């Protein structure tokens, strides 16, 4: 096993999809493990964190974890009630996420573990648990540096840009990339002729601003939940069409794109079709960007990626 790697434990958006027709890609909700030497950083705590927790307790040596949350929608925290390390004395877990205060973060996490919805509360956790706001300062966790950007998704939602030994990973599980440009196009006729240039400038500005957080990423893990047909019905739900995700990744000169937050309505056949269509778009742009579905169990060896100078 390599020293530094990313591993997908949950790749579904919205809700788990434990259906035989979906098992090729995986049915758990968002959870990505980032292992850098002895440091274990867990991105989101969807149901994928349950098998990850079970695997961690079988390991010798690991007793300290960092859990970095993008936001608190259920699919991103619903694995925590069954996250075994939290219930074992001697373990240390640091949570990070968007909030006004550590107490607010703790509140957001604990609310799903209250009667009558769950039999035990976070007070029964026996691990040493601490809460930290992913605030204005960058996080420095061992050799890993993490900054955040606010995403276009309901409520305060962060994407994380993670620098590991000269490589950049961007994790943006929930983000609606095309909303503002589509809003502008939909309302263009309402604007006077002399307002049109400013409107076009706003569209361009919003496009480039919307992708600056992913610029030059070695690995981009990004929301790609909808097909174009889905997006026509679900515009304004806070997720991206996979074609918009690919186009933005190309503009941002991403090296390896992993399409993420798969719609639980899409089975393996449909997701394979989406992957093929995405790869065709990349080829049509004569780009060398790798473009694949994020699949449960897949591991990306970070040590094999070329190092670069820090931004």
């Amino acid at each position, binding site marked *: 096993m390599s020293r530094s790697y990313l591993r997908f434990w949950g790749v579904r958006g919205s809700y788990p999809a434990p259906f035989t027709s979906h098992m090729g890609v995986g049915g758990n909700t968002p959870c990505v493990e980032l292992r850098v030497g002895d440091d274990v950083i867990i991105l989101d705590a969807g149901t994928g964190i349950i098998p990850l927790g079970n695997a961690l307790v079988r390991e010798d040596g690991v007793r300290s974890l960092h859990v970095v949350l993008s936001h608190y929608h259920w699919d991103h925290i619903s694995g925590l009630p069954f996250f075994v390390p939290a219930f074992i004395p001697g373990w240390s877990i640091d949570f990070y996420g968007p909030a006004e205060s550590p107490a607010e973060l703790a509140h957001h996490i604990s609310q799903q573990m209250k009667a009558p919805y769950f039999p035990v509360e976070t007070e029964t956790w026996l691990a040493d648990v601490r809460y930290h706001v992913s605030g204005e300062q960058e996080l420095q966790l061992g050799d890993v540096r993490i900054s955040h950007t*606010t995403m276009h998704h309901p409520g305060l939602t962060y994407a994380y840009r993670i620098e590991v030994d000269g490589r950049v990973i961007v994790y943006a599980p929930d983000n609606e990339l095309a909303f*503002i440009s589509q809003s502008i196009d939909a309302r263009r006729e309402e604007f006077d002729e002399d307002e049109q240039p*400013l409107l076009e400038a*706003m569209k361009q*500005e919003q496009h480039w601003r919307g992708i600056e957080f992913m610029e030059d990423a070695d690995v981009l893990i990004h929301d790609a939940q909808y097909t174009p047909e889905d997006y026509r019905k679900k515009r304004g739900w806070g997720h991206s069409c996979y074609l918009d995700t690919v186009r933005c990744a190309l503009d941002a000169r991403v090296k390896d794109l992993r399409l993420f937050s798969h719609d639980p309505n899409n089975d393996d056949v449909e997701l394979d079709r989406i992957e093929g269509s995405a790869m065709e778009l990349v080829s049509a742009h004569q780009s060398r960007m790798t473009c694949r579905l994020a699949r449960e169990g897949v591991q990306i060896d970070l040590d094999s990626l070329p190092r670069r100078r820090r931004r």
Partner: protein
Amino acid sequence: MAGRRPLIVVIDDSPTSISLYERSAASLDVELAVFDSPASSMRHLLDHDADLVFLDILMRERDGMSVLRELRALDRHQSTRVVIVTSKDYFQDRARAKELGATDYLVKPLRSQEIRDIIQQATGAVTKADG
């Protein structure tokens, strides 16, 4: 118009949005204070009243909802009119804005005339020609 001109504060880090506010307010007899940094705007608002605040919530430096919350904690701004103008159009954000005391929640892009109407309805501002 007798007395001081209405003070309109814009907090938005989008250069094109700022251009739109400046262009829209140019014909009105108002004072426009524009901030592309929430921190700078808060320093200004600590010791200035405002007749109307336009606030984006999706900014690089800081989430606009936390700006609104901090503003409402100040005695001076407990009832200041704060209109959220943002590219986000989600129920959760609208509900949060209402909970924090936003006067209104509008989705970009706004036409110049819409911005002028909001300013005039909120402050009674007149056009420069009328003033």
